[in-house]
């Protein structure tokens, strides 16, 4: 079953491709960046900003807007790319990546850019902040939902588990987490560095309603987000299996591309690959 019509899927594919191209644009401007995790969550971010979130770029402080908290703040190039594509700010700002006082720093800052909801970057903060937002919105009887994107390596931060317990204890069923489960973290496979499997069972034991999906399948991303909460009275979590650095063939699933400083000709190859994918998309 696919929750999306073919043209909706095509729109999201195009949006995700633009996000990936913008990520390269920022890496070009700044000379380096956390490209692996940004690329792996690009489809999840496209699905949120072009289908799931109830937001209005003209009113970034609208009280009843949905919030997306990028807990793994180092993936921020994907966030910047999504926000600019939704018109939160001019795309020229992306070209300041890495520059002094840039509004698009290596981790997001809410005071610098409309649409950024929290100052993340130190891993393990986003879920508590999002939980507080979900709680605050519920207390106000707002229909808004709070979405969180986390890394799988990030889950080793103990603060997440405090936040998780509190979200289920307080029945925050307006909270939906996507774990960008790319199987890698900074220095190696998540299973070798600090193994948190079985992940689904851990979250379930913390009182969350858990689903596992292919994190590059738009039908599954959007379809599950629309069905949240998966169980009334429980926070929901989607463990999205992804490929780190997805979209750049030579970098995919390689830990070396967590933080990428392109070697000679690497950037040209990556740009050409995405360009080819864009042409392919136009033909389809």
């Amino acid at each position: 079953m696919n929750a999306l019509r073919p043209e909706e899927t095509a729109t999201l594919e195009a949006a995700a491709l633009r996000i990936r191209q913008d990520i390269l644009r920022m890496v070009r401007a700044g000379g380096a960046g956390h490209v692996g995790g940004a690329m792996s969550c690009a489809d999840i971010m496209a699905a949120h900003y072009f289908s799931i979130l109830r937001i209005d770029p003209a009113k970034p402080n609208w009280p009843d807007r949905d919030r997306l908290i990028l807990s793994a703040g180092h993936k921020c190039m994907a966030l910047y790319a999504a926000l600019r594509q939704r018109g939160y700010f001019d795309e020229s700002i992306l070209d300041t990546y890495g520059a002094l006082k840039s509004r698009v720093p290596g981790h997001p800052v809410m005071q610098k850019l409309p649409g950024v909801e929290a100052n993340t970057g130190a891993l393990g903060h986003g879920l508590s902040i999002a939980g507080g937002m979900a709680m605050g919105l519920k207390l106000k009887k707002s229909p808004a939902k709070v979405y969180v994107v986390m890394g799988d390596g990030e889950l080793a931060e103990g603060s997440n588990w405090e936040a998780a317990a509190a979200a289920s204890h307080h029945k925050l069923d307006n909270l939906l987490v996507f774990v960008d489960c790319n199987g890698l973290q900074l220095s190696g496979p998540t299973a070798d560095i600090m193994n948190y499997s079985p992940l689904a069972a851990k979250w379930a034991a913390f009182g969350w309603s858990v689903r596992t999906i292919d994190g590059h399948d738009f039908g599954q991303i959007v379809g599950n987000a629309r069905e949240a909460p998966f169980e009334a009275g429980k926070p929901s979590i989607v463990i999205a299996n992804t490929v780190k650095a997805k979209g750049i063939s030579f970098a995919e699933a390689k830990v070396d591309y967590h933080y990428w400083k392109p070697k000679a000709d690497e950037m040209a190859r990556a740009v050409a690959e995405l360009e080819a994918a864009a042409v392919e998309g136009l033909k389809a």
Partner: protein
Amino acid sequence: MREFKDPRVGFGNALLAAAQKDDRILALSADSSGSSGMTPFRKQFPDRHIEFGIMEQGIVGYASGLATTGWIPFFSAIAPFVTARPFEMFRNDLGYMNQNVKVVGRNAGLTYSDLGATHQSLDDVAILRTIPGVTIVCPGDPVEIERAVQAAVVHQGPMYIRIGAPSIPVLHPADVEFKLGKGIVMMEGSDVTIIATGTALWRAYDAAEILRSKGIKARLISMHTIKPIDRELICAAALETPAIVTVEEHYLVGGLGSAVADILGCMPGPHAPLKMIGVDDQYASNGPYDELLGLYGLLAEQIVSTVEGFIGRKMPRS
């Protein structure tokens, strides 16, 4: 006879009174609502009292998120556990995100005297002073506690309020002028200025009275706000009186004395020298509160002799 009051009860009552007028106020608890004075709040506003259990790091993050949606969370618990434990959450989620959250550290200083260094809080002001935009208030008597809570509701931005636990005497008239960032001159004097804060204020007050009875005209300032500190009042004292003594139940590193030293150190021209009374570089001991204060020179009679010694030894000013 002066009236002694429990600071936690005073905080709780002030919070309740504020919440009756302002429905944005929430009380957040880490399994210690009652001992933080928030039982009356919980009884009257059960829906606005949120229990989290013992997860102080997470609570600071939740408080930040709650504040983004327009609530004014007051999070009160044992001082080290709302400052040193969740320091990075305080810095990023409250400071860097500039959220309107009020953190209240109770049993601060040496007041958990018998429980030892894990529960005493002698570094809270020092570490929080490093966070840009955080207001730090150490109210020194029951009136200041009430005023600090009222000011916290009006002030936009993250704030830390530091209170003790043993009862403290009422020192101010009910209508005293209280402004964040402005010290209160409680006694005028020209021989020495004593600047005290928070839990140490009333013993400094007693010391100033004893000095006056001995003919030493001590100026006494209650410096309830450590950040932003009242630079003007400190500079005036440094020019108008020949010596300054600070008194605090905190480490000498990074507390009131250090904040005053920062200002005096950059002051051009001749000005009064500084003597700091507080706890030096060590884990404080344990035992009965008054006896513990005595180990660090924080009893009124000890403050008197430190002041006398300092003025006596001081070089005469030209």
